[in-house]
């Protein structure tokens, strides 16, 4: 069944048809959310929020763009709002994790230190992505986590392909600068 038919079914009252849409797009929404929050639980919460929001405003979907493009827009906005809402909580969780990692250094110190270093490196990369300006971060996540083309990213962000290219270049340069210590 095509997406247009499914949407008509849902709007005529067949709520179960929405499950097919959820099953089709759940992976992509979850992956994008992961790019913004880097946590499975938070990404699942965002996925739920995105689909509920999509269900509520399905009647407003005008089919000018693809359903997936529309869903990507909702995902990006929901993820950014989620990140802004939970900044303090994220900070507390990170501090807790750091302490836990430090306290877990056991007798096998060599391995523990290697693990600690690897964790630290991963965290630095995540922090660097999180600290990118909003538009650069959105373009970067859509490109790297969802493997979308510049054309598709341009449609989602409602900007030109050239602008997307520029955002991606700047994002990469910023990340290189922030993570130069890793080399």
């Amino acid at each position, binding site marked *: 069944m095509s997406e247009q038919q499914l949407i008509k079914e849902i709007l005529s009252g067949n709520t179960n048809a929405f499950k097919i849409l959820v099953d089709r797009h759940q992976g992509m929404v979850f992956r994008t959310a992961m790019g913004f929050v880097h946590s499975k639980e938070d990404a699942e919460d965002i996925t739920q929020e995105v689909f509920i929001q999509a269900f509520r405003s399905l009647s407003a979907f005008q089919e000018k763009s693809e359903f997936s493009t529309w869903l990507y827009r909702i995902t990006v906005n929901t993820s950014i709002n989620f990140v802004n809402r939970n900044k303090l909580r994220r900070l507390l969780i990170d501090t807790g994790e750091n302490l836990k990692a430090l306290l877990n250094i056991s007798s096998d110190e060599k391995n523990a230190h290697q693990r600690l270093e690897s964790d630290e490196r*991963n965290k630095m*990369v995540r922090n*660097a992505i999180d600290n990118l300006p909003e538009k650069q971060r959105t373009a970067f996540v859509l490109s790297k986590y969802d493997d979308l083309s510049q054309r598709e990213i341009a449609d989602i962000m409602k900007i030109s392909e050239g602008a997307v290219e520029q955002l991606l270049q700047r994002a990469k340069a910023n990340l290189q600068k922030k993570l130069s210590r890793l080399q």
Partner: protein
Amino acid sequence: MKTEDVIDKVIEKEKQVESNPFLSTRIMSKIATENAPLNKRVYFFRLLVVAASIALVMRMGVSIGKIYDEHRIDRMALNINDSQIENLIYYMDAAYE
């Protein structure tokens, strides 16, 4: 290792994380709960309870107000003559003579 490789490695690791297999069920049940029309009986019962609560609170207010009024206009209290309470004349020798 190049910085770009490190970034790609971290991203690849995150992309391999799978969501809970019951996530779609969780989403659908949430939508079903939101979408369920409220039972008419429950709706009227709720209205009735709210109206009864308001009436009860008003009745209590009036009752308390009345109690307060009764105490305020206590004629006995107002007419107490202080000089009769402690009539000093009883303590004066002259009075018994």
